[in-house]
């Protein structure tokens, strides 16, 4: 199994990774080798097996829906690269 250049570019965009051409080519080749190794999964018969959802056997963990003190805007914004009042500031979303 081998990834085409456009597949690598598509996955990089999905992953929001702006890779250079050289990096894209190198990653593509490395992913091919890893995916080939991963293909061994198909040697295991799992036709009668359910997938693992929670390894410790926990099911539906609930808590009461009660109000509690929150972090607060100042603390939440404390690491913001840019802010405008009580908001995170980002670049234009539309061109």
């Amino acid at each position, binding site marked *: 199994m081998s990834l085409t250049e456009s597949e690598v570019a598509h996955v990089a965009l999905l992953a929001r990774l702006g890779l250079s051409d050289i990096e894209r080519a190198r990653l593509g080749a490395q992913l091919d080798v890893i995916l080939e190794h991963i293909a061994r999964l198909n040697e295991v018969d799992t036709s009668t097996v359910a997938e*693992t959802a929670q*390894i410790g056997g*926990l099911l539906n963990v609930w808590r009461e829906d009660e109000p509690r003190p929150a972090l607060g805007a100042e603390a939440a914004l404390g690491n913001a690269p840019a802010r405008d009042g009580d908001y995170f500031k980002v670049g234009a979303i539309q061109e």
Partner: protein
Amino acid sequence: MSAAWAGRSVAECAAGLRSGEVTAGELLAAARAQVDAHDARLGTVLSRMDDLAERQASSADRTLRETPDRAGPLCGIPVALKDVLCVEGVETTAGSRILSGFRPPYTATSVLRLLDAGAVPVVKTNCDEFAMGSSNENSGFRPVRNPWDPGRVPGGSSGGSAAAVAAGMVPASLGTDTGGSIRQPAALCGVVGFKPTYGRVSRYGLIAFASSLDQIGPFAHTVADVAEVYMVIAGHDPLDSTSSPRAVGDITSELGRGVEGMRLGVPREYFAAGLEAGVRTAVEAALEVYRGLGATLHEVSLPSTEVALSAYYVVAPAECSSNLARYDGVRQGMRKDRDTLLQSYLDTRDSGFGAEVKRRVMLGTYALSSGYYDAYYRKAQKVRTVIAAEFDQVFDSVDALVCPTSPVVAFPLGAREDPLSMYLCDALTLPVNMAGLPGISLPCGFSEGLPVGLQVITPLFEDGRCLRVAAAYQAATDWHVRRSPLLEAA
């Protein structure tokens, strides 16, 4: 004074604090002196917690002086924290440039419990970026080097936490283990590293890598020491919905009960090709020690051991690609400002993440992308069920498994450039994460002058039995009192 305490165990430091031979302030000074002496060479530390450490040390000294009966076993003990654990106001980077300057607004539950117990957090330790790696060469800042031979890697991803203990900077530290990231560096650095059952230690405040596999656990020189740290950090936390509500129990009372009459399984697949001869020799000698202690040895088979690597390298990257989607330069860390938000995302993540993180994000995104989910993630989670069932079945006939931790001893920096050869370092540890089981690595000898680790694995929630089997070995041997050459020279 500092040389006298560097390399001592938690129990020895605790005894010294109680007898008045040393104070918490002096232990902290000794820890800092050891960091100052060796960190430039070893690359162990990412940041220091001087203010917090001083407050904790003086508070511990007050407790020890005024209300000594309220001082627990960790009161006044210097500790190091892997830099994936959030500490309020202290720079926490997970070894990644994308989180440079990030100061978390809250503290991880495991760290809070250490603070409540009076421990003194000295440094945040270097690690592979977002805990992805087996050699600590993937840190976004600098590699960590092995105290036994600085030309070699300490293992990873918690290499800084393992090396900090091996270099005598602190008697105990916290790391995290997603595919072997506590046990493998413990093996390569000649210390004890314990990965508890998944869900035993709250992950609240832990920077996530692969949430269904990540587990926090301790490093120290002895099994008794890791047990003390485990007792402090384990237990249910309402802030982590995957933390187990089961009672932890007092496992320290189990430690001395020995292994007489115990059935120990030796999984054939863990001694297969790829195991270095020196590692095999040391581990086989350890098995004879157990026989001498009255345990019986039984060869068992875990046929899916090899395919577990394939399943792991779907599950872990898939979860990592999802968890790391949050690093977009909007809420914290570095940002590349561009004309459009999309371009800012692309460039921020391109320059903020290192090669291994990008590789895993790409792999995981591919495995989760439309049309591939069933073939990869769902299939891998089914194989995971098969792996867990094999362990279950084996534990019908044996009480614990004993085997090597790492197939190899510490290797030179740069020796494993090929990603797949690096992934194989965790071949004997990651099946344990896939099944959620407790596992421990403890020193069991040397090969070519480098430490070898023995791994003990027990059933889910049998953390006490895991520690008990390991403690029995240490009671009969003295590998755990050996120290790295830089401590012996001091």
